[in-house]
């Protein structure tokens, strides 16, 4: 499908959303109306990334991010429902499913008759997936028996297919192997729990699942048994990519609302937009929104280079989730008191954006991970000479850390890795923005991002005060 087909699809999505999607009602009712889900299915959105052979549209990652962004501009719960289905929910099945597995599941998933979910978070395994306790062991009858609990399963309330990560000791010759299992929630022993009550994304379904002696046939294992950890890396890349695309939609919606407001709102005899402080804030917001979009596009373009996709989607997830929340907060601030009132929809944008800094890898964990990657496998330096100063600053930070800590011991310095990770993420956003900039305005936005990225790269990572003393005093209850 080329852009000549995607553009009309985006128009159809916008027209449908204008007529049928009511974000405040979805938020108040804690669910997306059935007719909205049917409408999305009729538009073919649940099959957007699925192969044409099974009834999907076979969209590329670059095309799919535009679909998710368009949905998120209208309502983040709707975008999350569709994005989760297309990314985490079905990516494993598309990439490693056997023909029989695909034949059974992909046609109903493409039509929207079935919705997919992904179950990996556990009570003791959030961002640390090495702590998975959900266990699948061979039973005497030749099946696997699955035990354990999964939390915060997006689309859990109505999903017809769960991709479940489980520890499968010994399977595939891996003593501590992990496998991905395709589970029908109607299977005996699977107990779907009640809908969670949340701060935001209230229209998006979130439930827990308890698996008690669930008989899983061997043909429900996705790909090679015991290789789930390596599959997971790719599935999570897609999850982060589409989440980031949703953040771009939120940022656009927040910025559009802010711009509309500052044009007509007058204070001190002038429109807000004429105030210099407001202009500076809006210029920075515009640059961040452009950087978010550029980074997501750059990541999506790496669809077939899985290592690069993983690296860039990590940067995109952190940069875009922070950017979307910051822009929603700015929009609320510029709206003044009216922004705090739910009816304007700005508070909803901010509440919906908040969780994106947490799920699909908490940002602090991803920042540390980005720092470790930069220490152990530095990214390839781009040829664009205008970026050499920024890349050198990040490389200098990396080299100083390695020299001070004497090689691999640098990895024990978590706070320094975290700071290096933040420098990497800003560098990646500024690089993507610079590489894609074509117009003078885009180049100006990219230059603004490069300036800020350089400041981040050169910021000290050691606190000027003994923070451990303050923490100890707080824990002992003697301060403040």
């Amino acid at each position, binding site marked *: 499908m080329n852009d000549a087909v995607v553009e009309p699809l985006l128009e159809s999505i916008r027209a449908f959303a204008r007529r049928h999607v009511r974000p405040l009602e979805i938020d108040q009712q804690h669910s997306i109306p059935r007719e909205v889900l049917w409408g999305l299915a009729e538009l073919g959105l649940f099959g957007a990334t699925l192969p044409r052979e099974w009834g999907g549209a076979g969209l590329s990652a670059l095309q799919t991010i535009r679909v998710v962004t368009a949905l998120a501009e209208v309502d983040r719960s709707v975008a999350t429902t569709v994005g989760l289905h297309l990314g985490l929910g079905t990516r494993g099945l598309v990439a490693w499913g056997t023909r029989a597995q695909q034949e059974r599941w992909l046609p109903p998933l493409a039509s929207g008759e079935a919705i997919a979910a992904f179950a990996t978070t556990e009570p003791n395994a959030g961002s640390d997936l090495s702590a998975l306790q959900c266990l699948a062991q061979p039973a005497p009858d030749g099946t696997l028996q699955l035990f354990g609990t999964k939390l915060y399963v997006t689309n859990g309330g109505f999903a017809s297919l769960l991709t479940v990560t489980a520890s499968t000791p010994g399977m595939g010759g891996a003593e501590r192997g992990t496998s991905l299992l395709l589970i029908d929630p109607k299977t005996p022993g699977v107990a779907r729990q009640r809908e969670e009550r949340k701060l935001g994304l209230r229209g998006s379904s979130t439930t827990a699942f308890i698996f008690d002696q669930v008989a899983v046939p061997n043909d429900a294992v996705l790909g090679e048994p015991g290789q789930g*950890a390596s599959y997971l890396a790719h599935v999570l890349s897609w999850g982060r990519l589409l989440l980031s695309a949703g953040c771009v939609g939120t940022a656009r919606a927040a910025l559009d609302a802010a711009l509309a407001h500052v044009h007509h709102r007058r204070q001190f005899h002038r429109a807000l937009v004429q105030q210099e402080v407001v202009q500076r804030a809006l210029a920075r917001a515009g640059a961040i929104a452009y950087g978010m979009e550029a980074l997501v596009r750059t990541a999506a373009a790496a669809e077939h280079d899985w290592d690069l996709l993983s690296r860039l989607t990590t940067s995109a997830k952190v940069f875009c989730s922070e950017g979307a929340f910051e822009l929603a907060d700015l929009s609320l601030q510029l709206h003044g008191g009216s922004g705090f009132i739910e009816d304007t929809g700005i508070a909803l944008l901010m509440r919906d954006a908040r969780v994106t800094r947490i799920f699909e890898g908490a940002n602090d964990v991803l920042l540390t991970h980005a720092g470790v990657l930069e*220490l152990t496998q530095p990214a390839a330096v781009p040829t664009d000479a205008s970026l050499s100063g920024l890349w050198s600053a990040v490389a200098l930070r990396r080299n100083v850390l390695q020299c001070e800590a004497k090689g*691999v011991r640098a990895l024990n310095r978590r706070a320094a890795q975290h700071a290096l990770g933040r420098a990497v993420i800003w560098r990646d956003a500024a690089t993507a923005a610079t590489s894609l900039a074509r117009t003078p305005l885009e180049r100006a936005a990219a230059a603004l991002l490069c300036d800020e990225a350089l400041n981040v790269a050169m910021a000290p990572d050691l606190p000027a005060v003994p923070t451990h003393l303050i923490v100890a005093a707080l824990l002992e209850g003697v301060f403040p």
Partner: protein
Amino acid sequence: MTDDLLTQRIFSMMAELSTVRAPDIRLEHRLREDLGLDSVCSMELLSMLAEEFELDVPMEEAAQVTTVAGTVAMAQRHLALKERAVS
């Protein structure tokens, strides 16, 4: 430190990061597939090792280690280098 003591210490450190108990760890185990340590966890293990024994292990060398035996060999090699430098 004898090779046996070094190996036992390394097994204990691996058990701290993995759910596999120290007595069940074997030299032929792979860090990822058998101990469940992803690439970040594996590097963390090697950094803990380098910190405890004050070894200066280059990042590139550490990144090549994928097995328990490789970890032990890396530690032995750098301990020997350290002793030689001291003497």
